[in-house]
């Protein structure tokens, strides 16, 4: 088998046993990256392999990987796909970069994304859109589109992204790979350029749930530099993958399977439910009517926090500065006006509006109350169920250019993923089929707070029964599976 088709753990094992050398792994990756750059525009910066100082004792030691370009890497430019940071070279590493390097990770570069992670298609990047390796006329999803595309196309065996409202899970679904947003606080956000701090969380994108568990095992844990990080015992998510599902109760929110969901996606996700049932889980439908309120609550809170977080980009301490300006106020305004793209400006303006005097109570405070109601509804659901199963997206990857023309429509497509961030829950997107055009479909497993292990284990059980996560773009596409296995 070609090296790029292995999972990260399989490659890690081959490196450990000596049957594959590190140089051969890097060479295989670089060959794929050359193709990926021409076709998908997944990388913003390709670096020489950053050789770890230590060999590392992670099962992923020596495995080539890459970071989304909103994660600070010392000495390697970190742009957030924005003009305003196009020449920013951090003088420190994010905590996740430190931890992965110490575990022997070999970074090959930085990945394209929506500007400041604001977007659902990776088209708002000021360096051009990411293209989907399954169909180059379609988007890779966003905002971690470069990460999902790079993993799907075999440029790296795993990538580290960030998820504020679905930015790991949605591109993973569009690109046919597995992506996990852990419980809020599981992974330190130190060194992650902030979008909406109460919702942002770093997580892995890889081929399999087991790969994601191995990456999380390295990244997890309390960090004094992020006061919201949790003191979670690093008890081995990978070691906890038994694939045992007997007696587990899985809820299907009927509100996630109604109007607006494309048929091939619905069929594939319901087929995934059958696979989990066959492994011994009890799966039943229930109602989660708060789903109606998750998108407005999310966009109000996310934009409010973004308007505050992005006030630091003013052309003074780092980043790009407008070429001509008069006084200090003019320097700020010209730099921000010319340095930010349209979607970022839209969200800053929206956030400023919902926080402004006279509108605060009607929008921002109302959204924070809605967040409490949404969290309570999930708490009630998890009193009855161990996990929830939903689609990741209402449809498969749209064509390039389709979404940008209608921002509200793009926001609405985030309906199945944003509730998870509002409630701080762990959730994973796993490939579960293809639509008639041959585009990947994802299913989402959601767990209770700190239920990351449960989520990963159910996904692992699913992947023991299916091979959707072992399909590769440009590989053998089986037409018989076109309806998601039904």
């Amino acid at each position, binding site marked *: 088998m070609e090296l790029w088709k292995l999972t990260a753990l399989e490659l890690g094992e081959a490196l450990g046993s000596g049957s594959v050398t590190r140089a051969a792994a890097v060479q295989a990756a670089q060959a794929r990256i050359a193709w990926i750059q021409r076709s998908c525009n997944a990388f913003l910066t390709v670096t020489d392999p950053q050789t770890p100082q230590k060999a590392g004792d992670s099962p992923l030691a020596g495995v080539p990987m890459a970071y989304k370009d909103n994660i600070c890497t010392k000495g390697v430019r970190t742009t957030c796909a924005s003009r305003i940071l196009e020449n920013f070279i951090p003088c420190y590493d994010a905590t996740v970069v430190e931890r992965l390097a110490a575990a022997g990770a070999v970074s090959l570069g930085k990945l394209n994304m929506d500007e400041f992670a604001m977007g659902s298609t990776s088209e708002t990047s000021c360096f051009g859109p990411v293209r989907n390796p399954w169909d180059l006329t379609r988007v890779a999803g966003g905002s971690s589109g470069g990460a999902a595309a790079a993993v799907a196309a075999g440029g790296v065996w795993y990538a580290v992204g960030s998820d504020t409202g679905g930015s790991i899970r949605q591109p993973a679904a569009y690109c046919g790979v597995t992506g996990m947003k852990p419980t809020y606080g599981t992974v330190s956000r130190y060194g992650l350029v902030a979008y909406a701090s109460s919702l942002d969380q770093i997580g892995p994108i890889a081929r399999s749930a087991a790969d994601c568990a191995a990456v999380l095992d390295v990244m997890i844990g309390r960090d004094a530099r992020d006061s919201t990080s949790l003191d979670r015992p690093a008890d081995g998510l990978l070691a906890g993958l038994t694939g045992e599902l007997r007696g587990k109760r899985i809820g299907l929110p009927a509100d996630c399977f109604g109007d607006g969901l494309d048929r091939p996606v619905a069929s594939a996700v319901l087929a995934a439910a059958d696979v989990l049932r066959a492994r011994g889980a009890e799966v039943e439908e229930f109602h989660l009517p708060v789903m109606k309120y998750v998108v407005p609550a999310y966009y109000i809170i996310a934009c409010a926090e973004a308007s505050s977080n992005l006030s630091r980009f003013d052309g003074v301490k780092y980043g790009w500065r407008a070429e001509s300006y008069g006084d200090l106020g003019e320097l700020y305004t010209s730099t921000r006006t010319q340095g930010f793209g349209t979607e970022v400006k839209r969200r800053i303006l929206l956030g*400023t509006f919902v926080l402004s005097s006279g509108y605060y109570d009607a929008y921002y405070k109302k959204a924070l109350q809605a967040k409490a109601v949404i969290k309570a509804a999930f708490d009630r659901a998890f009193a009855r169920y161990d996990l929830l199963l939903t689609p990741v997206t209402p449809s498969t990857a749209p064509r390039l250019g389709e979404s940008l023309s209608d921002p509200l429509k793009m926001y609405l497509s985030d309906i199945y993923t944003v509730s998870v961030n509002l409630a701080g829950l762990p959730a994973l997107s796993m490939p579960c089929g293809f639509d008639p055009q041959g585009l990947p479909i994802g299913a989402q497993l959601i767990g209770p707070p700190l239920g990351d292990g449960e989520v990963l284990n159910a996904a692992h059980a699913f992947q023991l029964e299916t091979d959707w996560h072992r399909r590769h773009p440009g590989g053998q596409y089986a037409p018989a599976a076109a309806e998601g296995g039904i």
Partner: protein
Amino acid sequence: MKITEALVDYISQLSRLRLPPEEKRAMTTELEGIVAYMDVLDGLDTAGVEPMSHVFPLKNVTRPDQTAPSQDGEELLANAPASKEGAFLVPKAVE
């Protein structure tokens, strides 16, 4: 909720952004549509619900005070668009 160009001017000023006339017109229409959609939240009864800013009950997270070296000044200034004698350089703010 009607979003007017005057309101967009006001929030642009608060955000330190300046939209050219054409962009402002388009943004006004888009924000109007988005804010109208957000009024869906009016249908949710939140009477007596405490606003939730954080999902976990974190309060006063502290650590012991310890002296540690700061980031090197030259390294920090290396990213500044303009610097002089170890300081960030900006136009005169006070006459």
